[in-house]
């Protein structure tokens, strides 16, 4: 078995996760799964950035690490906002359905 360098393995995995997350974001219908896919995409980008910082030499670059650290915290708060909005949308749609049903004109 030949040795693969860690920067190769993790870098390609980061790119793969990014592309997969993009596929989920474009190809899935549910809001919650779109949010999951966005998170996977973000993880892929973070992995790629940190791999670049790690693989450049013996010195590990702290600047991408700091950027990704902010990115992780921002991504969790934006996930929370997106989830709140998604729940809000679904509840509003359900309330709309209930109103329609009460009036006798059922949607769908």
């Amino acid at each position, binding site marked *: 078995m030949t040795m693969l360098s860690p920067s*190769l393995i993790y*870098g*390609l995995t980061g*790119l*793969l996760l*990014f*592309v997969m997350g*993009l*596929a*989920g974001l*474009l*190809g*899935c*219908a*549910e809001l919650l*799964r779109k949010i999951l896919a966005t998170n996977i995409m973000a993880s892929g980008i973070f992995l*790629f950035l940190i791999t*670049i*910082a790690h693989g*450049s*030499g013996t*010195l*590990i*670059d*702290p*600047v*991408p*690490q*700091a*950027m990704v*650290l*902010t990115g*992780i*915290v*921002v991504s*969790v*708060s*934006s996930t*929370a*906002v997106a989830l*709140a*909005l998604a*729940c*809000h949308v679904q*509840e*509003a749609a*359900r*309330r709309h359905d209930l109103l329609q049903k009460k009036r006798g004109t059922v949607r*769908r």
Partner: protein
Amino acid sequence: MTKGPSKTASALKRQWPLALLLVLLFTALAWAYLAPGPAAVGLAAQVDASLTASGVSSRVTAVLLNFRAYDTLLECFVIFLGVMVVWSLRPTTVTAPRQPQAGAILSSLERLLVPLMVLVAGYLLWAGSNQAGGAFQAGAILGGAGVLLLLDSSPLLARLPKGGLVWGICLGPFYFLVVAVAAMLRGRHFLEYRAPEATLAIVTLEATAAFSIGLCLATLFAGRQPQGKSRGENSAHSPAWEEDS
């Protein structure tokens, strides 16, 4: 993949044009990554050269709170904005069924874990100036403690005044601004502080930012604005967050 027409399509379906496009994108990205070129030159040497002027000995903390403090300032405001967005959503009338009261196991778990989480958060905050750890990690753990309290619908939250919550959320971002402007008043640039007084500035900034980030994360989990004392049905014991979100 043959599902009833009433159900919406859930998982990723086979869409060949999209798949082809994404495979092409992956190939292009991988080629760009693996293609031989000049080696990337990081900023590690510059960071190491000016580490003594930054006031802390941890490189990541120095970058976060001194060299690129702009990022952290904006990030604090992004989280603050997130809380404002969540609070501005009008509560819908469809409510989930009420949670039963937390059992003995959950409340004892909460009593065990929350003090430990606060302790570990304090440790990470203290250790953050010379090793891994710092405001974000401590804030995330504090947020986890808050989420645990919210999940157990702890009576501790009933004693939380709403005004205090707002002040706590505002504390981190606005203290950051105060420090930044104070640097300007001393004849420096916005957010420029150097070695003798930088340590104090960074430590206080980290403490307030961790506190605010923790509160913000817990508030984001709660999902909406806490009901004030005036609006509850039995206002004497209405908790800051009602447990039916």
